[in-house]
């Protein structure tokens, strides 16, 4: 700890230096590093349940920063402990950072009319999935990390370096076995294990407290893994499957189309394994809003960007502007496990898991103890149920399950077309519009290099595969040359054979000089073999040259090819999207008209050129600008002459009806 403080350029024996550093950090960037360090330290301590000094109140309406002469938090601390230790750095750093954030927030949120729910304050969730001042760049004890073994095999690990912490976790009532989600093989690890066992060796948890993204060697030093910060995507790939999982291609598209944004409230029914839950929690997260302004230890005011504050102005009286996921799962055990996981991941303040069959019980959450702002009031609904049409009638604004101030979007996730059609029928009946039935076809692509012989570069030759099977011809030229060689060779051979047999026959006829002839034959045969051998060697040499001959250039050989992954998910589910618009009544119409009165239809203004009405969106005649060209002048003069003539004629015959043609002429 001392080291940490010194690393930040401070020695613990110089509190005044520290103080000035901290004050300077208000304006400059120089000491932000220190603060970041103290944060990680702080969190480390909290995680290890060390005794931690009380933080100064960090609420927005807390007394202003202490005057430079007597920094109140420091002096208070010094009464308790004679030594000025790194806890002071942590605590005071936190405090200062909160002030910085405060001032920034105040500056950003402009003419800042205090949001309706002004009494609530925003804190930052303590979750490795979410950003916040705690999310230091290192993996912290008791937090989730993802071990990246290969592209396809990810293993989640709850880093618990001390056996005590592990046993505490194991002793908790709703404990679950540490999930191991190598899809290929299940190897349940005991929950109180303090090291991670993989096929690449074992990794003690204490060695995993490294900056996220680090490569870590196994304890034996022979293998390695990468330790990553968890994201919903990585969690989806590594979570323990309890049900069929909604994968990233689907969930990303669904969340995009449902407009799940910071501050949204999402109903999710059929939470299942919690894959979508995590993705939705990330999407709705806009800080954790607390009604009480009490200075809880470690609370920091979040970035004051205005978002989601619209919900607070609703006439419903619920003033909860926090983004929430309201998750329903009718399987009680699954709900409990999910709740436990969310607790582990620090997402419990964002997700409310309810164990209920929504088809029967509906979506209302009126329990005041839940502290979700009265009722669900969702703006987005995701139903992953076998029979969503039974649940949809429960989704109404009247019952408080849907937002009364915003249009609500729904997505139903059904594998079968019949389910989807039935869902659409009910949605139409219930007044949803913009219904859309889609299917997401997602592919992962592999990139390889393929050599001129059509074989993948870098792949090892298969055991037992003979080279003969794999001989491939790369080009027409090669084919021609090869065939030519082969055929000519054969032809020569046949010719030689014919000559030999002819000789033999001759000899048999003659019956003499048998011995010598035999030797000639042998030498011929040997020569054949030597020829073949030379050819092969030459071919092999040339092939080696093609490949560059050295290992350095192997990765640069051949051409890059792209193909689809070997196992393709060709169908996951049909997605039914729909929107429930806000109701609009006669009364609303009258009110709106009184506010913004609708003008009467303007008199038509005809474009003399086209004869069309341009007051209502047609093209207006272009105003004459600058000098007229000669031809234009001539035209205008002609038109005027004609009009004059017509007028003269009109005087005579008093034909007023011709005036129309006059204007037309002028227009031309």
């Amino acid at each position, binding site marked *: 700890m001392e080291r940490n403080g010194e690393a930040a350029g401070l020695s613990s024996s110089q509190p005044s230096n520290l103080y000035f550093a901290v004050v300077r950090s208000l304006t400059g960037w120089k000491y932000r590093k220190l603060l970041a360090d103290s944060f990680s330290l702080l969190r480390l301590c909290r995680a290890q349940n060390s005794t931690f000094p009380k933080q100064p109140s960090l609420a927005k309406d807390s007394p202003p920063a202490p005057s430079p002469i007597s920094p109140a938090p420091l002096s208070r601390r010094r009464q308790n402990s004679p030594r000025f230790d790194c806890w002071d750095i942590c605590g005071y750093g936190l405090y200062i950072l909160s002030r910085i954030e405060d001032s920034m927030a105040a500056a950003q949120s402009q003419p800042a009319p205090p949001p309706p729910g002004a009494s609530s304050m925003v804190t930052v969730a303590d979750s490795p999935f979410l950003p916040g001042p705690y999310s230091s760049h290192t993996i912290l004890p008791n937090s989730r990390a993802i071990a*990246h073994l290969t592209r396809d095999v990810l293993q989640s690990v709850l880093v618990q370096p001390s056996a005590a912490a592990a046993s505490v976790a194991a002793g908790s009532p709703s404990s679950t076995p540490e999930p191991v989600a190598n899809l290929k093989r299940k190897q349940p690890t005991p929950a109180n294990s303090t090291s991670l066992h993989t096929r*690449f060796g074992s990794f003690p948890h204490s060695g995993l407290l490294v900056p996220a993204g680090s490569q870590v060697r196994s304890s034996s030093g022979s293998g390695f893994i990468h330790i990553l910060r968890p994201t919903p995507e990585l969690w989806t790939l590594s979570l323990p499957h309890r049900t069929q999982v909604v994968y990233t*291609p689907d969930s990303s598209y669904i969340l995009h189309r449902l407009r799940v944004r910071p501050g949204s409230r999402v109903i999710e029914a059929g939470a299942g394994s919690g894959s979508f839950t995590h993705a939705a929690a990330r999407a709705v997260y806009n800080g954790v809003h607390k009604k009480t302004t009490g200075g809880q230890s470690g609370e920091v005011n979040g970035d004051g960007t205005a978002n989601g504050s619209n919900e607070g102005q609703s006439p419903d009286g619920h003033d909860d502007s926090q983004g929430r996921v309201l998750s329903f799962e009718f399987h009680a055990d699954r709900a409990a496990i999910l709740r436990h996981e969310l607790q582990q991941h620090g997402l419990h303040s964002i997700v409310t898991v309810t164990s209920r069959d929504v088809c029967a019980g509906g979506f209302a959450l009126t329990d005041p103890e839940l502290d979700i702002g009265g009722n669900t009031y969702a703006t987005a609904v995701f139903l992953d149920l076998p029979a969503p049409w039974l649940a949809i009638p429960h989704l109404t604004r009247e019952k408080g399950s849907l937002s009364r101030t915003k249009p609500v979007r729904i997505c139903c996730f059904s594998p079968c077309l019949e389910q989807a059609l039935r869902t659409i029928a009910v949605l139409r009946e219930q007044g949803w519009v913009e219904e859309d039935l889609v299917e997401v076809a*997602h592919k992962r692509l592999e990139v390889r290099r393929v050599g001129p012989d059509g074989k993948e570069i870098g792949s090892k*030759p298969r055991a037992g595969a003979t080279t003969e099977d794999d001989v491939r011809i790369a080009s027409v030229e090669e084919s021609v040359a090869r065939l030519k060689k082969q055929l000519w060779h054969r032809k020569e051979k046949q010719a030689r054979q014919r000559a030999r047999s002819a000789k033999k026959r001759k000899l048999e006829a003659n019956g003499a000089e048998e011995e010598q002839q035999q030797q000639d034959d042998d030498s011929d045969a040997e020569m054949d073999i030597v020829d073949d051998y030379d050819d092969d060697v030459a071919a092999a040499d040339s092939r080696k040259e093609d490949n560059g001959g050295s290992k350095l*250039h192997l990765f640069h050989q051949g051409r890059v090819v792209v193909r689809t992954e070997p196992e393709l998910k060709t169908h996951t589910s049909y997605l039914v999207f729909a929107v429930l618009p806000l109701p609009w009544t006669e009364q609303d119409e009258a*009110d709106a008209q009184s506010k913004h009165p609708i003008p009467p239809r303007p008199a038509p203004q005809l474009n003399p050129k086209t004869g069309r009405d341009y007051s209502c*969106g047609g093209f207006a005649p272009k105003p004459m600008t600058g000098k007229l060209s000669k031809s234009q002048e001539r035209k205008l003069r002609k038109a005027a002459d004609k009009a004059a003539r017509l007028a003269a004629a009109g005087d005579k015959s008093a034909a007023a009806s011709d005036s129309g043609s006059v204007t037309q002429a002028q227009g031309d």
Partner: protein
Amino acid sequence: MEVIQPHDEVLIQLPSETTKLVKVVPDQIIGLGKFGSFPANSLIGRPYYLTWAILDGDNFGLEPVSIAELNSEKLATHAPDAAAAAAKKPKTTSTSASDSPGIALEDTAVGIQVGEDGEDGEEDEDVALDAGTLEQELEREQRAWEKEMKTNKDIRDDQTAQSMTWQEIERLKKTGGTGSGKEIIARLLQSHAYIDKKTAFSLAKYTKRKSNKYLKRIRVIPADVPNLTNFFIAEKEPLKLLEMRDEAIGLLMSWADVRWGGRYLVIDDTGGLVVAAVAERIGLLAGDDARAPKRVSNARKRKRHDDDDDGADNEKEKEKEEIDEDEPWPATPTKRKSGYEQTEVPAANTITVLHAQDQPNLSLLRPFNFDATNLVNTTTHPLSTHLLSLSFLQLLSPESDTTLEKPAPIPDDTLRSLKSAKRSTYHRKCRRQERLLNMIAATRRGGFDAAIIATTMELSGVINAVVPLLRGSGQLVLYSPSVEPLAEVADWCSTLRRSEFLRLKQESTSSSSSMPSADPEKITSLDPDSINPDIDAETLAVLSALPKLPVHTADAHFPIDPTNLLAPTIHTSRVRRFQALPGRTHPLMTSRGGSEGFVLHATKVFPILEGKVEARGRFTSNRRKPAKQREREEQQKAEREASAVVTGVESTEATSAEAADEMAIDHVG
């Protein structure tokens, strides 16, 4: 209430199944060409997603269309009965139809709209939905379908089937008033020779075609990122957006782990679509601050003008503008430093845009009430503080940038004597310089959560510039309309290449001989040759104190540092839309072609640089045993050199639980 506010940009879905981007300016008229026009006031305060009928004739405005009516038309539940009614009626009225349309029309209109048979049909359906099991209902549907089955055997394909002439239609349109569209359709159905021979589905199709033509119905949808994407893809130039569809944006945002409070690096050649998507995901487009400003200064309005092709609007706007020019800008003595005036850079929830040109092209942000080229008007917009833009020059070589020059300092007493306009200009220049310096410092400090790149530039340079700025386990996400550039990137990180890179690097470090390709960790410092002499010493001191980025010197074999990126993976996703009507469900017959859209994501990692990096895993396979033995021998010979030997497919073949064998692999690839 989330309703249409004055000055909002909205999308209007037209009956022609096209969409139009319209700004709802109070007291103006929104013209939709042949579909007529309506006052903008009749939209203000109304909710989105409702369907409106444009009133014509003497009435001016919009009239809501009930959802039940829309659905019944869509499902054509009334159609067979209506057809029957129509088939019966013409025989009686056909002679009089041409000279006295009014009488005949009333009858048919009634018959079609509130046909008693039709009502019955709907009730039946309700009962079935409530009580019937799925099977029963399906059976019933099937039977009904078979019963109604007709063919087009007797329908002759000629022009004489429709006896109504276009002159009659025009006359109806003129005289019609509000309900003229419905009347025309009723007349068309009535005067069609083969209407009773059409199948129910074909009749529904015919009716739909005619309603699209004659019923002036619009639906107003909000101009949010998904809707705008669809609009630009379908109506405007999709190439300008790099043909980025919803699916691709979803994948980008998910894999980049975009969440509230993060810091994101964006390179955006789509004109701002990616920035808008990120901004929406981190809550920068919500809230009252993101609304259109009440007052729009003249410069911006004039710019609008040029883009706007709506003649009528232009006229009105010009008048208003003139009025505006007379009013002085309200003087606020205690004006807080806000938006772009703020020199500090927010520490979180930011989007940093890197651009190749002098200015970023973020024109697509204008529907979100943010104009990057004219910040004066959007100071309160959250993006004005949280959107930071740097050119590559400012990022990589800030010392040679001219925008970092401080204005010539003016002493205080002269400053006080200056005119207020000049004084404020001076202060603004100082602030701009300070803010830019802060932005450069914050960006160079790195630690970004993700880099989202949709660019047509050469990717190796982009990756080399961006990856050092990512935090560990941060995501690099690339979008490309075609797969080839991404395949190249994946190939640059191939296992063979990486192991070779590591080998070379270790050789060079052990022998301490500097090989050009194996010595990528060059340190950037201020290059004395490229320092702009006009930058003052103080700024230079700040710049030289900036953290040095590791620079990879690209060569032909290693365009990027292959050790920093873990498992680059290419995805492509495409949505297939269906027509979902009972008995007529099928995928849409046509949809947009063009590029598929590919997304590559990789994770920034820190490799172990010293010592050997080698993965030894337990794998089992009978087939590969000899190969492995060979490898092991090789390895023993090479005293376990630090090259990771390659297998690409080990993970998929590692299932058979026989004869466990240890082999050296690089399991990252």
